């Protein structure tokens, strides 16, 4: 199997915004779930998909170390290629190495100005020019709408696609009329794509709640393999 087949067969193919050069505009997406259901795993799969499609991804990890983020990429990459007889595995590994950069911040140290400063360092010196930014661990409960608008404005100015993870809580029943749970229920309009991870019948489902620019359409469900945390083909 070639890299292009890996990209073509990826169940995430239906997702939008499709991160990368071949997407028309920059856009924002969010993966929401309770703790421990696999938000980071889905985010990293979105990042890997973007990389395999020739894009550069900046992975911003808030509150977790560099090594942990690296391990996610290594593990999921091996799970994705396992049993697929992919050619040139070494080249694919090199693609990840060259086209991914990880930035970690303490919870208290992350802010839009800090992110902007770091992005400028990378872009102006031509060190790394990302096409897509994935931000794992942003505290949505503590971030107000203005903060998210601020980040959106930055991403628009830099023409970047951005994906977030957001932590929801079982005991917080608030939700938007479309079913976007707290803490993102009042900022639904800021995202083009909203994905919810939900436990169901002993497994975990990836439910697309909102999809303004992609082909999936709201309501589409993809199962997550709980052993490997890989998104699988939906029926």
């Amino acid at each position: 199997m070639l890299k292009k087949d890996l990209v073509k067969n990826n169940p995430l193919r239906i997702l939008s915004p499709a991160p990368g050069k071949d997407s028309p505009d920059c856009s924002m997406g969010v993966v929401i779930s309770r703790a421990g259901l696999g938000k980071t795993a889905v985010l990293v799969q979105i990042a890997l998909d973007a990389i395999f499609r020739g894009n550069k991804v900046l992975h911003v990890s808030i509150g977790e170390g560099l090594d942990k983020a690296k391990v996610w990429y290594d593990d999921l990459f091996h799970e994705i290629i396992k049993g697929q007889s992919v050619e040139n595995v070494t080249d694919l590994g090199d693609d990840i190495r060259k086209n991914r950069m990880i930035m970690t911040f303490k919870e208290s140290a992350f802010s839009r100005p800090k992110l902007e400063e770091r992005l400028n360092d990378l872009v102006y010196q031509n060190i790394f020019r990302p096409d897509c930014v994935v931000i794992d661990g942003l505290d949505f409960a503590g971030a107000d709408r203005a903060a998210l608008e601020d980040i959106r404005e930055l991403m628009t100015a830099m023409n970047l696609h951005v994906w977030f993870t957001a932590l929801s809580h079982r005991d917080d029943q608030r939700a938007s009329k479309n079913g976007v749970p707290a803490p993102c229920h009042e900022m639904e309009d800021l995202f083009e794509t909203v994905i919810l991870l939900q436990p169901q019948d002993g497994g975990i489902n990836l439910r697309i709640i909102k999809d303004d620019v992609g082909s999936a359409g709201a309501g589409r469900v993809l199962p997550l393999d709980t052993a490997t945390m890989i998104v699988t083909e939906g029926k």
Partner: protein
Amino acid sequence: MKWNIEKVRNIGISAHIDSGKTTLTERILFYTQRIHAIHEVRGKDGVGATMDSMELEKERGITIQSAATYCSWKDHTINIIDTPGHVDFTIEVERALRVLDGAVLILCSVGGVQSQSITVNRQMTRYKVPRIAFINKCDRTGANPERVAGQLRDKLGLNAVMLQIPIGLENALEGVVDLVKMKALYFDGDQGEKVREAEIPAHMMEEALAKREELLDVASMFSDELMEAVLEGTPTEEMIHDAVRRGTLSLEMAPVFVGSAYKNKGVQALLDAVIRYLPNPTDVENIALDLQKDEEEFVVRPDPEKPLISLAFKLEDGRYGQLTYIRTYQGSLKKGDSIVNSRNGKKFKVGRLVRMHSNEMEEIEQAGPGDIVALFGIDCASGDTFTSSDISVSMSSMHVPEPVISLAIIPVDNKSQQNMSKALNRFTKEDPTFRTFVDKETNETIISGMGELHLEVYIERMKREYGAEVAAGQPRVAYRETITQRAEFNYTHKKQTGGSGQYGRVAGYLEPMEEGDYEFVDKIVGGVIPREFISSCDKGFAKSLEKGSLAGAQITGVRCVITDGAYHAVDSSDIAFQLAAIGGFKEGYMKASPVIMEPIMKVAVEGPSEFQGAAMGSLNQRRGIIVGTTEEGDYTVIEAEVPLAEMFGYSTVLRSLTQGKAEFTMEFSSFRAVPKSVADSVIKAYQDEKNKK
């Protein structure tokens, strides 16, 4: 004293460079009364620390060779190996860890977990060494042991739990609070030799109780008895000690202690922890290989009555001949005993048996299981196993990294030439990461090792210890060559020069190998190449790997498969088939799309965040790939992968870019293919050099 193995601790002290290992060891020796005065690493008295016995070590203030010593603390014998912090000398750390049962990981309370701490921790994990951590330098400005404990958890993945908290920090460091006893410990006297126990200062009580709670939470996971007692509110000191020991031995917990070795605070409490929580030789399972049963693994028993099994882990050439450091795992070693080197079957009689104390020694009559001693006059290599004559076993081998840098050395005169040979002979025996060979084309002696400092130190030692003055060339990167696709060959070697000629034909293919350097596969059927010449083909291919035709570098990762061939009843010979294989390899090699590989280093630049952009830019200019950045407050660590060839002189560049506020460390990561433009210039440089000759 009656030998009681349960009262022996073999421990290593390892950490990042300049985190105070040698200073701490000096205090340990002082408090255990092995020495009677404390000398500092760069002390004004000019004596230097006891464990830094090599002149160079004293001058540079770093530990180069690990030194072994022992001391007694509260009726226990502690064997200590003080190991180097610089990554170039990592083999010393690896060797020490192989023979140790436990380790103290030293961290600087300001610098925290740095890249070398990560390397050392990984090595400890590889050899399953239980560890305790000591956060040193709590007296320094910017000390933050709490942050460092957090890094132990986040960066090293250790279940780090504080067993002490400092009383005051920086200039105000007074002592420590023992969270098990719930007492304050102060270290009085000119050299902190008097440990005074007192009540915890009232203003710290709340913090101490909270920290003790955390400790009990973690420790009770290792003891049901403690868990019940905690629930009932009656945990005893013994229960906590027992649970912490279990957690430590199972490698599932790393107790953390704090202090300042330089200010003589916290060292005695650390020694208590060493004997309390680190394993004795019976707690550790060591595996040996039974050479009579096809290297079947078996567990070594630390029983003095059983046959001897011991491992030579370090060699030194001293005034009285070769000194061999040995760790005994099973049985006893007595003066006059006959022992066998299981690698070559050579027998030796144990002459002088000594315990080492840095570069001084103490004669002993016998050593029991778990002991670390040294023998005189035994010819062996590092890593050899010695046993009594009735068994044939080997301890598992040690991991030896490949050298990444080389340079040519030319002796300045005849005398130096002779002395240089002697020196190289000794150094290569002592240190498996230091290699030497003579380049057949240039006739130059090439030395290779793990980094610039590594080679620099050996050149300096040649001069100082052997009087061998050498002119050293520019350091060169140790490139490798490999193939990227399968290619066939069919080569006939034919030579007729009167008398019997030479004839041999080999056909087959070369293919890349993911793992390993070289493999020879014989797929000959029907005797087209007679059996006696198969090994000649293997030899020929192996010879071909010594020097690739692109850059003259060693070829690795090649499988040579022979499928066909032909011979002549009279003219075929060993040499004819060797030459046929060499010819076949040459033919196949260029068709197999060979590439040049270069060593890639894992580089960590640490410094104030304001210089992050400049530092990243400098790495980027060096063909570096930025793996990531970790920002903590005003401090950032940049992790990158950079070709070694681009790292020469980087320390000066980094210093000027960051006003001397950032530092970097690097260690070998892997070999990777060089980009085409670089490959072209490497090939050109090699061709130019060849044409000059």
